[in-house]
Every structure is written in structure tokens, then in C-alpha cells.
């Protein structure tokens, strides 16, 4: 019996989870009503080298955009780069939780196997000498000052947090309440501050209509992501999607627990129309279950291959731009029915973590480590289409009896995962071709009409 495998083209389903901020925090220059709810960050890490790429989907007036990020070392101009939005978006959709669909075989006949796949991509000035003097008076040292792309960047070190706070306020970076003790803690840990705002002139001449992601490369034993400042000006808990690229294996926080997002569950067909809502509800339920104390693993996989692939694999050039400097000239793994990477990029491992946090349950920055764990994991949800054409045999009767049980199980699974009302789920299933009373489909036409299909 021949097995036919058809792959439909990938459809994008957007999740209504908007990525809105950096892991640092926005400071409004005018009293704009800004808040950060979610941020998307890519970190590549090997040896003591880190490249951090921070997505920027700031929506307001670019003049109001400003960020302060604690960094472990002084960052020179050549260590900063402005990347393309597409890079992060590509990695995001490549690693996003996915919906897979299968079609049941004819219970009477040969197998016809189709697979479709949907990806739930998470939509998720240079200083004058006066300023230097002023800063010095307040115990703030401007270590570096430069413009990269549309951003004016300062690297600050400070002796006292109140001086730093005062200086930032004088420079009209408006800091949220409660920032001072945190700044103080970072200063004592010998952290520097990466301060960026938009150079409007550069931005206008760049021709871009949006702010591009900032990239920072540095060498430090410290492998961590500062999240503490970010909790200050957020209204309630916020989301962070952290994607890491490493040579060895999965990245995990050492000071918080990692939990795998539920995966492999069979869910009703109608979810295809509202995959974003489904994922959002499921994530919220899981967060609640874990009392918002864990980091969720959504994807962990060798970049050399994917199965199923939620998006086209990243090109070696894209990986390099995201900080994978160790990429070698290995050979890609070709597996039948799967998409393999072009032959260069094999020794990169991607981890996607999703964390919802606030200052209460995540009081400390994420301290990370690269492990040797290379086990594959993906958030994957399965829809199984029942056989809905002619089936007139004994097996079909059993098949249809089983279907009802199966649908009921799917409904329960979905209710458990999302906390949705089960009767609503059943109703939606009925409306979407999953009747709880499906019967074997018999062709009642005369045999000659069946033969020529002309009835």
C-alpha cells in the first residue's frame, strides 16, 4: 500500500500577543502614557561572548522613545549594531508553537495521509562637553557616546544611584518610581548602563517607518538578562519571549524553574480558526497553574532541521547576524519529508523561553546557563480530521463509534488546557464538522451512477 504524503503550504496565524518593549524599560521623555507588556529578545551565547538583539515595536512618537539597559561591560561603538526586524520575526515564527493537522484514513481503504501545518508566530546625539562636566559633578561618567543607525547611545557608569537618577532626569529621561534602589544595586555590581534614544534626524533620513532592533555584542562571564527595571513601569505582569542561540544545547535559568509548555495534545478542529486565542488562553492557564513562578519552554531544537517546520529555516547569514559567530562549514542533515538547513549551518541550537513575570514572583534578573541538553522539544498541537467520505464496511461502524469518544476527549483536553467552558467547546465542535453523532457515510446511488459518478 502506497502512502501519499502531501504537505500544504504553511499558513500564518497571528497570536494577539503584542510584543511591546525591551527588557530594559521605556522612559518617557514627554509624559506619554507608555507601558511595556512584552518583549522579544534574542541572545546568542558561546564561551564568554554574548550578542543580545532586542526587538523594538515601539508604537508612539519616536521622539518619546528611550531605554536604559544594565550591561556588564562598557560597550564601544563597534559593539553596537542596528539589525533588521525581519531577523527576529523569522526566528520568532520558526520557533513559535505550532498547530499540525492530520487527516484520518478511510477506515475501509488505503491510507491517504495529509499533513498541514500552521505556525502561531508570536506577534507578539552626541554629547557636548558641558554635559560631560555636568555628569561628572553628579558622579556619572559617560564612558562612550555615539550614534548608530537611528539611535543615540550613551554608555554610563556611575558612583551613586541618586546622581545617576538626577542626571537622567536632567537629560529628561523620566524614570519610573522605584528605579533608584535597583540602579543602586546594579552600580554596586559594577554594571554599566546602556542608554539609547532616537536621533530623529537620522531616523527621518533612514527612510524607515519603524524603529529597528538594537544589537549589542560583549564579552563577559555574566550570562543574564536584566528584567528588574522592566517591572517598574509595567501595568501588571508582562511577557518576555527569550530566544537563545548556542553551540552546545538548551539554555535554562538557574534561579527559576523551567516548565515545558503542554505539547502533542489532540485538540478540536475549530481551534484552527482561533489558534492565537487558544494559545493565549492556554498560556494564561499554565501560568496560573504554576503561580507565575516558572519559565516556560516553548521550543528547543537543533537548528539543522525541524519537523514540522513552522517557517523556512534560517539562512546561515541570518544566524550570523543574530550573533552565531561560530558557524562552521559542516553538512546539513537531510531527512526525508523534512526541510533541512542549507549545508553550512548545523551547529546552532535554539531555545525559546516564554515568561510572564512581575516584581513579586520574579524579583531577581534571569541568570542563565547553557546546558548540554540537546533533546528536542516543541509546542505542538494536533488536529485530526475525521474521515468524512464514503465508508461502507464493518470497520467503519467501529470507527464512527470511536470518533464520538475521540471528540469528547478532545473537548475535555481543550477545556483543561484553556479553562474554556466545555459546553461552548462542544457547540463549536458541532458547528465545525465534529458532530458527536457521526454515522458511516453510505453512497445510496445506483451502482452505475457510482461507477461513472454522473448521478
Amino acid at each position, binding site marked *: 500500500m502506497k502512502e501519499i504524503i502531501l504537505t500544504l503550504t504553511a499558513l500564518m496565524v497571528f497570536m494577539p500577543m503584542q510584543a511591546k518593549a525591551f527588557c530594559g524599560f521605556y522612559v518617557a521623555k514627554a509624559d506619554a502614557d507608555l507601558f511595556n507588556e512584552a518583549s522579544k529578545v534574542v541572545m546568542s551565547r558561546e564561551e564568554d561572548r554574548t550578542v543580545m538583539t532586542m526587538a523594538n515595536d515601539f508604537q508612539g512618537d519616536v521622539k518619546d522613545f528611550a531605554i536604559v539597559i544594565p550591561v556588564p561591560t562598557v560597550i564601544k561603538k563597534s559593539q553596537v549594531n542596528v539589525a533588521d526586524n525581519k531577523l527576529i520575526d523569522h526566528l520568532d515564527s520558526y520557533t513559535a508553537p505550532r498547530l499540525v493537522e492530520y487527516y484520518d484514513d478511510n477506515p475501509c481503504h488505503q491510507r491517504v495521509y495529509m499533513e498541514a501545518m500552521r505556525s502561531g508566530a508570536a506577534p507578539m546625539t552626541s554629547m557636548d562637553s558641558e554635559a560631560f562636566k555636568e555628569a561628572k559633578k553628579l558622579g556619572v561618567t559617560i564612558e562612550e557616546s555615539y550614534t548608530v543607525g537611528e539611535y543615540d547611545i550613551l554608555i554610563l557608569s556611575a558612583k551613586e544611584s541618586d546622581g545617576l537618577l538626577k542626571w537622567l532626569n536632567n537629560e529628561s529621561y523620566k524614570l519610573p518610581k522605584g528605579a533608584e534602589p535597583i540602579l543602586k544595586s546594579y552600580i*554596586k555590581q559594577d554594571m554599566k548602563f546602556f542608554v539609547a534614544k532616537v536621533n530623529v534626524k537620522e531616523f527621518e533620513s533612514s527612510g524607515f517607518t519603524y524603529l529597528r532592533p538594537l544589537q549589542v555584542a560583549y564579552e563577559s562571564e555574566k550570562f543574564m538578562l536584566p528584567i528588574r527595571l522592566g517591572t517598574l513601569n509595567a501595568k501588571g505582569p508582562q511577557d518576555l519571549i527569550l530566544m537563545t542561540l548556542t553551540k552546545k544545547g538548551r539554555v535554562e535559568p538557574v*534561579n527559576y*524553574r523551567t516548565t515545558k509548555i503542554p505539547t502533542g495534545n489532540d485538540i478540536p478542529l475549530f481551534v484552527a480558526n482561533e489558534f492565537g486565542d487558544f494559545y493565549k488562553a492556554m498560556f494564561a492557564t499554565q501560568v496560573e497553574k504554576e503561580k507565575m*513562578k516558572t519559565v516556560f519552554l516553548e521550543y528547543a531544537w537543533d537548528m539543522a532541521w525541524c519537523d514540522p517546520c513552522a517557517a523556512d529555516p534560517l539562512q546561515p547569514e541570518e544566524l550570523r547576524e543574530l550573533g552565531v559567530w561560530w558557524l562552521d562549514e559542516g553538512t546539513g542533515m537531510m531527512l526525508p519529508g523534512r526541510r533541512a538547513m542549507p549545508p553550512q549551518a548545523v551547529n546552532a541550537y535554539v531555545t525559546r523561553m516564554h515568561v510572564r513575570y512581575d516584581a513579586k514572583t520574579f*524579583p*531577581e534578573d534571569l541568570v542563565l546557563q547553557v546546558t*548540554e541538553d540537546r533533546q528536542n522539544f516543541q509546542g505542538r498541537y494536533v488536529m485530526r480530521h475525521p474521515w468524512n467520505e464514503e465508508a461502507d464496511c464493518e470497520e467503519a461502524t467501529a470507527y464512527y463509534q470511536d470518533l464520538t469518544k475521540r471528540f469528547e476527549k478532545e473537548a475535555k483536553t481543550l477545556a483543561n488546557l484553556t479553562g474554556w467552558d466545555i459546553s461552548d467547546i462542544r457547540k463549536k465542535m458541532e458547528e465545525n464538522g465534529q458532530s458527536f453523532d457521526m454515522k458511516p457515510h453510505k453512497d445510496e446511488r445506483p451502482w452505475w451512477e457510482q461507477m461513472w459518478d454522473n448521478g
Partner: protein
Amino acid sequence: MLERLRTISQDPRHFQILTLGSLLCFLFFFYDFAPAIEIIPFVVGTCLLTQYVFTKVFKLSHFDFRSPFITSLSLCLLFKASVFLLYPIAALLAIGSKFVIRYEGKHIFNPANFGIVALLFLAPDMVWISPGQWGSALWLALALAAFATLVLLTARRGDMTIFFLLSWVFFVFGRALWLGDPLSIPLLSMQSGALLIFAFFMISDPKSTPDHIVGRALFTFVTAGIAYTLQYHFQIREGLFYALFFMSMTTPLIDSFFKSQRYQWRQA
């Protein structure tokens, strides 16, 4: 029956086995990233077999399964490797060290700690510890502490755990006070399951730690200090295990300054 129970309860190792065993079960049922189930028979088997072989080689009076069993459970809980073979190797080295690396009739290293650190040195690209895997479920810590209190009551070296935890509190809370951080940060660190397992089951090993109480206090304080420095200033996540490893080597020296009676497991 009651008499039998009393005899069993006199050996703290029974409580240790019970606690570590329940923890392992807990991991399997409730946590992701639990150790792969197939490693357990290999680690336990290798530990027991190594102990048996060395008992015969060194012509010891009897084979006692309890200590190697505790070592194997600690290894299953803490040690992670990307290559399966490394699990039995760690078990072999752990138990082997107990018989081979000795000074004046006392083994130098806590076996599980030796197994872990040896592999961290020998195969740094293939092994790791997941200190965060345990999360900070407070009640887990409390349950552990409650079990451990039972152990402490019966074990003469329970003071090591208390000394160590106090020293750790000194360092992490001291750091938070100095930085002006909220106390929820050091509390998070105190709730780490790896830290508690280390404190209750590794550093408290009566066979590889100083005999005199002052020696033990000194030993734990310096261990905590080194671990803290490695972890917070050198960003070495396995700091606790390295610290104990290095400090274990000073035990004979500390013993020579503070002399006291040698510890013997009470026979059940």
C-alpha cells in the same frame, strides 16, 4: 515490630533514603526535566556493585547497601549528562573514591560530590547541574526540612547542615543588604532545591568532614564563602560542589588542629 522500627530509626541513613527517594518520585510525577527513568537502575546498580566489589577487595567485614544507595540517589537527583555512559562512570568514581582516596582510615570526599566534580572536570562539555530545575516551591523546601529535622535528630553531624545554612544566609542576605536589594532575592536563593539537597545530604556527610565541632563550623563557613564567591562573582553555577570538593581536601589538616573522636555509623 516496635523494637524493629526503633532500631531502623536509629540509623539516620534510613531517613535519608526515604527523603531522597520521595524527592525523586516527586520529580517524576510533578516536574519536567526529571532524570530519565532508565538511568536510575544503572546508577543505583553501579553504586551498589562498586561498593560490593571494593568490600570484597578490601576484605571488609560486611557489605552495607545504605551509603552507596544514598550516593546513587543524590547522583540521580543532581547530576545530568548528555551521554548515557557518563552516569555509571560518575557512580563508579563516586563509590571508588571512598575506598581509594583515604587518609588515616577516613575517606576524603563525599562520594556523590566527588562523582559530580570529577565528571565536571573530565567531561565539562557533556555534564551539567540544573540548580534552577527545582524551582523555589517553598513547601517542597519545608517538607525537605521537616524530613531532615528527623535526620538531624538522629545524626550526630546534623550540625553541619545548620552551620552551612547559617553561613549561606550570612552571605546571600549580606549581599542583598549591601546591594539594597529586596529580601525576596536571597529568599529565592535559600529556597533552591539543589542548595537544600547539598546542605542536608552532601555537606552533612559525617564520614568526610572534620571530627571536631569547631573544625566543622570553620569547614562549613569557608565552604559557603567559596561557593558564594564562585557563584556570584565568577558566575560558576556549580560553585557549591566545587567548594565542597576543595574544602574536603583540607579535612585532614583541620582534623590535625581540632582532634576529636572519629564518627561511626550506628549499626541498625
